[in-house]
């Protein structure tokens, strides 16, 4: 990939360390990441679509960080940015550190599939004309790929004949296990699961999430990107709440309780209260369009506690009660 990536290290925002696993060094440290796309509309008119704005988060070995946000809010692009597989017309700024070293495009190329693995959304991410076993083996590194594939099939209770099947022959549950197997076989230390449980049977969802928890318990760092906050809460350690391309809050799982008083950002509170098991109230309004982001706080147009100041200055992230928040009114 020849992204014209401009990953600079000049941003020196200090990131608050959340309390869980406090002393451990983060495996992945994303600071102030912005991703935009250049679009040509009618001739030479250029248009910038900013899909990720000043996003910051960290993932440590042994923990699951869930990135939770509504569908179509650009969460997948965060995964693609970390892996370095964004399309050519993407522009990136900010810093991404992997084990304290800058994640340059060259480094991304050598790390992806080895140190950093992706668990994709669906069986559509497997080549339709290639047998499953071969596709799992191709994710392994080293000379004993066939042995590693048998081991990983055993681990996920996949029968040996599954390796001879084509992707369309897999059942929903089998497909999930095959996709997780491609990440496990690579021995990656950072696993990014992008919406791994879309529209699945609850039992399959539970099984898939447990597989991710096991990977974290083996001291890997897991980043779970999902719109399903309830599922995320069952296995994650920390939750990054994603809104309009940025993290508005990073909270502990324990903060999501009662009426959400422990939460820091009005959007997180609204998201929590919108759940069926809570108050089931929808937040009015829609996320701002990526080609017309408001100058101030991104949530301000829909926020109930917004003040004139919110509309003019974009709030900086700050540490609050062992988490992070991006709201001047949070206390």
């Amino acid at each position, binding site marked *: 990939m020849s992204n014209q990536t401009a990953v600079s290290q000049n941003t020196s925002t200090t990131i608050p360390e959340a309390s869980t696993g406090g002393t451990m060094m983060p495996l992945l440290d994303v600071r102030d990441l912005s991703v935009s796309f250049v679009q040509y509309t009618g001739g030479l008119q250029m248009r910038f679509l900013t899909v990720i704005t000043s996003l910051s988060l960290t993932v440590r070995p042994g923990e699951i960080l869930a990135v939770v946000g509504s569908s179509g809010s650009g969460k997948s692009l965060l995964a693609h940015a970390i892996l370095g597989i964004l399309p050519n017309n993407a522009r990136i700024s900010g810093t991404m550190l992997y084990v304290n070293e800058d994640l340059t495009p060259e480094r991304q190329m050598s790390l*992806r599939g080895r140190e950093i693995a*992706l668990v994709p959304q669906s069986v*559509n*991410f497997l*080549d339709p*004309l290639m047998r499953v076993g071969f596709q799992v083996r*191709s994710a392994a590194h080293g000379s004993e790929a066939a042995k590693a594939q048998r081991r990983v099939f055993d681990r996920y209770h996949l029968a040996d004949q599954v390796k001879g099947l084509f992707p*369309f022959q897999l059942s929903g549950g089998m497909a999930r296990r095959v996709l997780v197997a*491609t990440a496990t076989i690579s021995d990656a230390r950072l696993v990014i699961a992008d919406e791994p449980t879309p529209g699945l049977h609850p039992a399959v969802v539970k099984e898939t999430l447990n597989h991710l928890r096991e990977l974290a318990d083996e001291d890997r760092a897991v980043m779970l990107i999902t719109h399903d906050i309830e599922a995320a809460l069952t296995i994650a350690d920390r939750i990054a709440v994603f809104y309009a391309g940025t993290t508005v809050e990073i909270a502990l799982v324990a903060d999501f309780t009662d009426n959400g008083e422990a939460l820091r950002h009005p959007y997180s509170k609204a998201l929590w209260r919108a759940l069926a098991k809570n108050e089931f109230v929808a937040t009015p309004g829609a996320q701002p369009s990526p080609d017309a982001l408001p100058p101030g706080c991104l949530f301000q147009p829909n926020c109930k506690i917004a003040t004139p100041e919110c509309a003019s200055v974009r709030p900086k992230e700050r540490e609050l009660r062992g988490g992070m928040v991006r709201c001047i009114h949070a206390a």
Partner: protein
Amino acid sequence: MRMGSALIYIGHKSVRLAVLLIALCAITFWLVSQSPIDPVQAYVGADMMRVGPEQRAEIAEYWGLNAPPLERFVRWGSAVVHGDFGTSMIFRRPVIDVIQERFTASLVLMGAAWVFSGVLGFVLGIIAGARQGTWIDRLIKCYCLTLASTPAFWLGLLLLIVFAVWLGWAPVGLGVPMGVPADEVTLGDHLRHMILPAVTLSIIGVANVALHTRQKLVNVLASDYVLFARAKGESEPAILWRHGMRNVALPAITLQFASLSELFGGSVLAEQVFSYPGLGQATVAAGLRGDVPLLLGAVIFSALFVFTGNLLADIIYRFVDPRIRLGGSV
């Protein structure tokens, strides 16, 4: 289970072929019988001053032209079923012999064009698709769109002017050199006479498969599974080879088989331009001179040819693609 479905498939296709051939022959027969060309007149040609009305009537009687059309058609049909295609009026030889000779010449010509256009089109399509949006992609696309809108006979004339008339590299026409006894004609002579018509047909055929391959590859490279392959750390050349070729080859081959009808249509025009003694040229001659037995024979064999192409395309699609072969939905 699979044996049964294969039998059903074969039965289904056989019935379709039979219906197709019967309908095709009936329509052709009807068209020829409505044609203003008098077969006796066409047969007698320049000798018309020496052939009197009585002799004409005798010829017509001998050919059975006085019987009602339906009776003639049925008589012809039952003879064909017994393997007798009748005698060509213009060649004065059994139709089956003429077709065998002409079809062989055409098959060599079309085969060369088919392979060449398929390989070249596929390669051009892969290059354009892999380099989508670059100058080379635009160049290939421009070339293909120009060719796709070029009539075969016009291109043939152009090649004739340049390579046969101006440069003198290739013969102007015919299948063998003029004035050379048949047993002294070498394989090289055959090849030299085949080059220009084959190139004409190939150049036209390239556009279709190249544009199709390009679009398919562009779609494959934008697919989720290629994105995931990138995420797994596969390099771009490996992705093109492993996933691109695999997913593009099957539709390209299918398309190439299905395009036999266009190839045959093109060969009729190209053979006419180059006076190449193939089936296409014989068909035109039979049509213009009211040679009904030869025309019907040519219609049957060209229909069989096109049907076989479509059948092969269908079989490849059905029995090679695992998604259809092993049952399930695409």
